[in-house]
């Protein structure tokens, strides 16, 4: 355990990258998820089709493949670069891959929330003269969000853990599990305590998330 603790700054550094990956990917997948959902429920068949195809396509692709496609396909093979240093470049590609993947789950979650909103309220809003986007923004999304706060928390937790794929999927992005593997490889940390230590690290990140979203979903629940 001492060997593990003496390397605690590396552990913390690893997790700091995990947090950065998680927060940025969460942000972008949320925005993209809302967009995909708006398209999915829009009255325009083309938008609905595009959104459905995207979601079904990405959702059935393993995350490893999505990240490999971003890292090896777009970044290395096609030479699309997002930052000057290699480390930052792969970092941003990982953010893109994680966002592209997670947005599907955000969107599916939002859509399940939308389905809980009685159609009558949407019709009432239409009959007042609200446009489609006003209806979404003022009536549908606020209520859908409230019902999906809990499930969105689960998506965020899954995303947090999914960031570990970014290092194994050939991108070599800096994050906690990569740091752990490096420590093993360099023989500077005993295996068992290090495993436990990192597992606790993830617990420290995700447990509060779970409790926070649980608390939030109770607070914002719409009385029906």
């Amino acid at each position, binding site marked *: 355990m001492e060997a593990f603790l003496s390397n605690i700054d590396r552990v913390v550094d690893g997790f700091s990258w995990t947090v950065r990956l998680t927060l940025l990917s969460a942000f972008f997948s949320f925005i993209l998820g809302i967009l995909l959902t708006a398209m999915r429920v829009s009255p325009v068949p083309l938008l609905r089709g595009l959104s459905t195809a995207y979601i079904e396509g990405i959702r059935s692709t393993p995350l490893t493949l999505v990240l490999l496609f971003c890292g090896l396909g777009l970044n290395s093979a096609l030479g699309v670069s997002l930052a000057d240093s290699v480390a930052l470049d792969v970092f941003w590609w990982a953010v893109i891959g994680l966002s592209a993947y997670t947005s599907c789950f955000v969107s599916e979650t939002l859509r399940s929330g939308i389905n809980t909103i009685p159609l009558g309220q949407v*019709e*009432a809003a239409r009959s007042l*003269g609200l446009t489609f986007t006003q209806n979404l923004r003022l009536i549908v999304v606020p*209520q859908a969000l409230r019902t999906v706060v809990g499930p969105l928390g689960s998506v965020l937790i899954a995303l947090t853990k999914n960031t570990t794929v970014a290092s194994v999927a050939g991108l070599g992005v800096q994050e906690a599990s990569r740091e752990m593997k490096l420590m093993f490889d360099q023989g500077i940390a005993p295996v068992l305590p290090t495993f436990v230590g990192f597992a606790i690290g993830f617990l420290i990140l995700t447990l509060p998330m779970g409790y926070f979203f649980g608390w939030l979903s109770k607070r914002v629940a719409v*009385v029906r």
Partner: protein
Amino acid sequence: MTSTPLVVLENVNKHFGDLHVLRDIDMTVNSGEVVVVIGPSGSGKSTLCRTINRLETVDSGTISLDGQPLPAEGRGLAKLRSDVGMVFQSFNLFAHKTVLQNVTLGPMKVLKQTKAQAEARGMELLDRVQIGNQANKYPAQLSGGQQQRVAIARALAMNPKVLLFDEPTSALDPEMVQEVLDVMTDLANEGMTMVVVTHEMGFARRAANRVVFMADGQIVEENTPDEFFTTPRSERAKDFLSKILTH
């Protein structure tokens, strides 16, 4: 009473798949008139109401409001809808908004009134339907009758040219029916143009200028309430009335 046509339906037809729900409907509602629509379940009453503010599209025929044909979509349609108020059987209040917010949303977002304007007028309307003291509650905290009165205030806040009611009292416990009918009767007496789908004959007799009887997607008979309820002309109407009068 003036007799300017306000809502005019001409030769309107509507299908749901193979089902012919509205057949050659011709109907005129004059300004200030109260028309009660009555008929057996499935006869197309709700569909008729919903085509007037284009919650349902029609297959053929024309519907016009105040001389203008209904716009197909976009801003024009939203404007039309704000001129046609609708009160639903299941109230359909916005569950995440307070009573007052339910009433001010349309005026602020569609009519672009300021919050102060909308709230002043909203409180006035809520007082009028005797629910002003509940303005800051959420819909789920109110009884059905109270919710329906809020829904009426919400529709009125848009200053609509015509109000459509689709069985506004059918979802209510019996003891709450009257409070809603009273509000509707007051509106009728004040000259509001109304199309009301209802089986409440007391209301029809008291407030309606005309009863329209529908069956199988057609308007079978139109008459004054007195004439219709005492001496219906068609067999369908006689049959229907004998059923609702005996239960």
